């Protein structure tokens, strides 16, 4: 099979792109070559000292597909011809990590287009090494040891967190060495069947609950911080050898006649790293799964079925392990929902005087847009892991049509990343259903307007879309226009030197006719140095307002921020009435705007 790295499992946010499901790797080997491929992405992979890295595995992917290639002895690589889209590029090679994964975690992403040349600098990965011994000091041979990255060096884990579990086994001295680690905070655990349960021979540790460094269960484990390239030695584990329990059951409806397969993954309920994974092939008449060596605790069992088109069905179930085996589980996959629609790019007005102001390409095409939906967190403490259809990304094809698929039931918010900084979203509409136009049952769409209104359009960008299981919502149309403006500035307060509270900046349209156009509102979070940035803005007149913000999770990404709901919009308009008006011309990038914040007397 053409898939690499059997001992490493990605739990990236981007699983929606069809991340390397074990059995499907060979299918994903090619870039989509539908009509008019437009060039290649080339580049070079080097290490920290500038030396080439040969045989690095390079992953070039966009929601339209991915292309993989490897670097030659000079570290150089080139993809095949790729269709126009926005691509991310990352690489991996044994012993190294790609710093772009840390950027991704912070919400930053760099996109490339066919014709670009990329330099990827790989850094030496960190190392954790030590010995595993029994209670009386004897070495444990060939026991699995996992280094589990649970959060980044700074900040809490969020749904962007790059969790990754590296696994090795001990040698005859009980020594293990796990290398190539991405900087972060780790837990180390020994024992059990290994991440995939694929032991070539049974071992005495198969049914044990893992022992965490130094010699505890998960709750008492000591964290290990790994900076870039750092080596942590003497991470010795005194093995407890406590039997874990079995979690087993059957996939009720996973049988297919094609090459689909279902991955069944166990996550701790409060975290998003993988405890263990199993795979059930669609053609296999035996649809049983068994996890051994599971410690007491709360878990989420997530099953996801993948076919050629990506994730097609999923189910998630809470499992409690309390002192005994949990057997007889029945997982019934539920079909996943989808949203389809079109992205239309308006033509650039001929002879527009402002064209020269625009820095990026105005010849963008719809397929360079990236769309993303994420499910809103449930009222209960939601699991952090992305399993089960909480998110999807898509890019339009050459006709501008897109398909966001593989979504679980729930309420979703859409974010749009235009092709480049010169474009903004002018309208986003979803026609209310009538029997001739869409397939979605009325209950599937939650309108922001009263039901009695005629076929008015609702704005899915902020009202959200509620999807029923397996439903398909059609007719989402996004119109993008050229001439987007940008605004950068920083916040100052009268009381210099006092600690700045966390701020959010609101951009409010000044024109009366735009007061109800929710897309003209924008929100940006202020960074620790007081700076803020708005991009992809429609030209026009605006007012700015700064307000202390409630503490919340850092923004998932740098896409268009969510505009506030109708009630808040009215509130903001009232508050902003007295502020200055900023006028933004097409393609104007206004920098160094200073916004004074005056604390309110009362709320």
């Amino acid at each position, binding site marked *: 099979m053409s898939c690499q790295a059997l001992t490493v499992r990605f739990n990236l946010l981007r699983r929606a792109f069809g991340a390397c499901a074990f059995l499907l790797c060979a299918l994903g080997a*090619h870039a989509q070559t539908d009509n008019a491929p437009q060039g290649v992405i080339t580049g070079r992979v080097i290490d920290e000292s500038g030396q080439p890295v040969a045989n690095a595995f390079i992953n070039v992917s966009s929601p339209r597909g991915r292309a993989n290639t*490897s670097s030659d002895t000079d570290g150089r690589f080139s993809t095949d011809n790729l269709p126009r889209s926005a691509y991310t590029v990352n690489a991996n090679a044994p012993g190294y990590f790609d710093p772009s994964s840390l950027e991704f975690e912070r919400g930053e992403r760099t996109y490339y287009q066919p014709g670009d040349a990329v330099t990827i600098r790989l850094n030496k990965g960190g190392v954790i090494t030590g010995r595993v011994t029994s209670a009386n000091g004897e070495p444990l041979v*060939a026991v699995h040891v996992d280094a589990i990255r649970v959060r980044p060096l700074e900040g809490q884990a969020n749904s962007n967190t790059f969790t990754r579990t590296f696994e090795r086994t001990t040698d*005859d*001295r009980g020594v293990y060495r796990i290398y190539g680690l991405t900087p972060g905070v780790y837990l180390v655990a020994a024992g059990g069947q290994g991440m995939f349960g694929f032991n070539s021979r*049974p*071992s005495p540790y198969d049914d044990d609950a893992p022992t965490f460094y130094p010699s505890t269960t998960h709750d008492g484990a000591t964290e290990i911080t790994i900076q870039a390239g750092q080596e942590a030695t003497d991470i010795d584990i005194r093995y407890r050898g406590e039997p874990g329990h079995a979690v087993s059951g059957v996939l009720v409806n996973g049988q297919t006649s094609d090459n689909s397969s279902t991955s069944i993954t166990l996550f701790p309920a409060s975290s998003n790293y993988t405890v263990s994974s199993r795979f059930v092939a669609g053609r296999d008449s035996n649809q049983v799964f068994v996890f051994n060596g599971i410690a007491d605790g709360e878990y989420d069992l997530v099953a996801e079925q993948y076919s050629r088109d990506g994730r097609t069905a999923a189910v998630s179930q809470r499992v409690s392990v309390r002192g005994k085996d949990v057997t007889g589980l029945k997982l019934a996959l539920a079909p996943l929902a989808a949203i389809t629609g079109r992205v239309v790019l308006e033509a650039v007005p001929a002879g527009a005087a402002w064209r020269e102001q625009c820095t990026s390409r105005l010849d963008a095409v719809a397929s360079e847009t990236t769309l993303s939906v994420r499910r809103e967190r449930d009222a209960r403490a939601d699991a952090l892991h992305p399993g089960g259809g909480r998110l999807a990304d898509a890019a339009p094809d050459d006709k501008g049509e897109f398909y966001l698929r593989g979504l679980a039931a729930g309420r979703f918010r859409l974010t749009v990343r235009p092709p480049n900084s010169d474009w903004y979203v002018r309208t986003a509409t979803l026609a209310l259903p009538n029997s001739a136009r869409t397939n979605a049952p009325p209950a599937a769409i939650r309108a922001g307007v009263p039901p009695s209104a005629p076929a008015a359009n609702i704005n899915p960008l902020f009202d959200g879309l509620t999807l029923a299981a397996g439903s398909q919502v059609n007719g989402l149309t996004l119109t993008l226009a050229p001439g987007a403006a940008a605004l950068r500035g920083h916040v100052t307060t009268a009381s210099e030197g006092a600690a700045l509270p966390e701020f959010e900046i609101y951009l409010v349209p000044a024109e009366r006719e735009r007061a109800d156009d929710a897309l003209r509102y924008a929100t940006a979070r202020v960074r620790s140095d007081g700076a803020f940035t708005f991009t992809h803005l429609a030209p026009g007149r605006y007012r700015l307002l700064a307000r202390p913000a409630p503490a919340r999770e850092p923004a998932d990404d740098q896409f268009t921020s969510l505009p506030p709901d109708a009630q808040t919009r009215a509130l903001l308009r009232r508050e902003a009435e007295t502020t200055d008006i900023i006028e933004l011309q097409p393609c104007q990038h206004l920098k160094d705007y200073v916004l004074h914040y005056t604390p309110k007397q009362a709320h």
Partner: protein
Amino acid sequence: MRSNALLRSTSTSARALFCVLSVVACALAPHVNTHAQTPVRASKGSAFVAGRVTCEEHPVAGVLVALMPVNWSGFGPPQPAAKATTDAEGRYRLTNVPVGSYQLTANAPAYIISNANPLTARQGRLLNITADDQLEGLDFMLTRGGVITGRVTNAEGKPVVEARLRIITADEADRRNPQYMIPPFAFQTDDRGVYRIYGLLAGRYLVSVGEGQDEGFIRVGRASSYIPRTFYGDTSEQAQAKPVEVVAGAETSGVDITVGKPAHTYEAAGRVVDEHGQPVAGAGLIYGAVNATGRFTGGYGSDGTRTNERGEFRMKNLMPGHYGLFASQGQAFSQEPSATYSDAVAFEIIDQDVSGLEIKLTHGASISGTLVVEGTNNPAVVARLTELRLGAGTRATEGLVPPVSTEAHINADGSFLITGLRPGKVQLFLGYPPVKGFTLLRVQHDGADSPQGIEVTSGAQVSGVRVVVAYGTGVIRGQVQYPSGARPAGARIAVNVRRAGAAEGEGYVASVLVDELGRFVVENLSAGEYELTLFDAATPTPGQRRQPADRKLVNVPDTGEVQVTLVFNQTPPTQ
């Protein structure tokens, strides 16, 4: 040649586990407690297997002993039917063992099992467990394995990370001894270029990294450069390699290897066309290693390359060597029947890309007919016919032929259709996965049996073929007696089962190994008379012809068991 590597004893904190190899030569004959030569028939109860694991008289605790089923048809690695870990006395007891055929294995990766039959040491000790078995004394005697460790760097002194090690014995005579066969690529270097191979049988070894040409493997993957095979001694020639001495319980360190510059891989390009010369889009390409006589050596694979709309393909990252390439209309390795069969094209990569390869997919012949079961009308049995898969392959004549066969499923009414057949003599067989109890009796075409296969011409549609299977649940339980008192050392005793009265070379039903206690079992036989032949399946020394040690006829009833005893009469070898 002595290696200049260091020999150093390991020191472990647990002296009880550290065994220095003294002069004691553990007999290669299986060490079986004589009480267990015949099973103790005690009162009815579930079967158990028990014994002790020791290393130089010291008990070894924490060793997992397992009974692995011989016929595993589940998805994923085999699961043990019973397992236990040795206690502080080194004792284990496997209880509630279901009836069946198993390999008894002791998993202690840092050790060698010194009382194992070298021919079967890697698989385990065969035991055909019956319901009343109470087997004691299934002991394992271990010796501490040896260790080879070193570092792999390149000419600039930089470590080579995740380089996979290959170890073969320095003495060619030992190379056929399975105990010396270490799975290739089981050990690899870490981020410092350091590797550590443990659990080795004492001896002299050649250690290498990298890939050699024409070794019978094919390389599926994306790495565009590779390290040419380099032995310890920094040479690419096996004859020049420095042997490494391994002593039981000791570590041989400093076995460092310096590799040269990575070598380039190349591309092979071409087209897939149909029999009219029209391009075939979306065809998958499969390639395998080809030996000097122009035959596929057995391994083949695909990296997912498919032809584009113009039927063109480019296979990348190929090492120099001899290859055979063929195409597949549907998904590579899928079970879906295809209407076409492919040529195979041989090509060699020396030091540049190869282009202009052309592979033809030709519309194949088809065979249709009915599959029936003889000797029973039991509707439960007839209903299971749809679980069978009928495989078909054309007998290879000359030239390079893809080493694949096609399969068809059986419809509810017993009919089948096999398509995409190459012209020639087509053999039918029961395909994978096997369904217990069914054996192929005969294939009939035009009213006559076709034991040599059915002749099909190009594109023909042969119909009216009748495939007759038998279903049976009869069982033969046998016991082998050794007049010398014990099984000969180094022997691999087996029993061949044929239908009595079948013509020479036909009627083969099954071949089973005789277990450690001299017992064998043949299951799922249909009623009839069978001929059993007892022989030693160990590879004979050249010049010797194997003679059967015993031969008997057995009548098997419809259901139930029949017992038979065979005597291992060792006849002198004939010239």
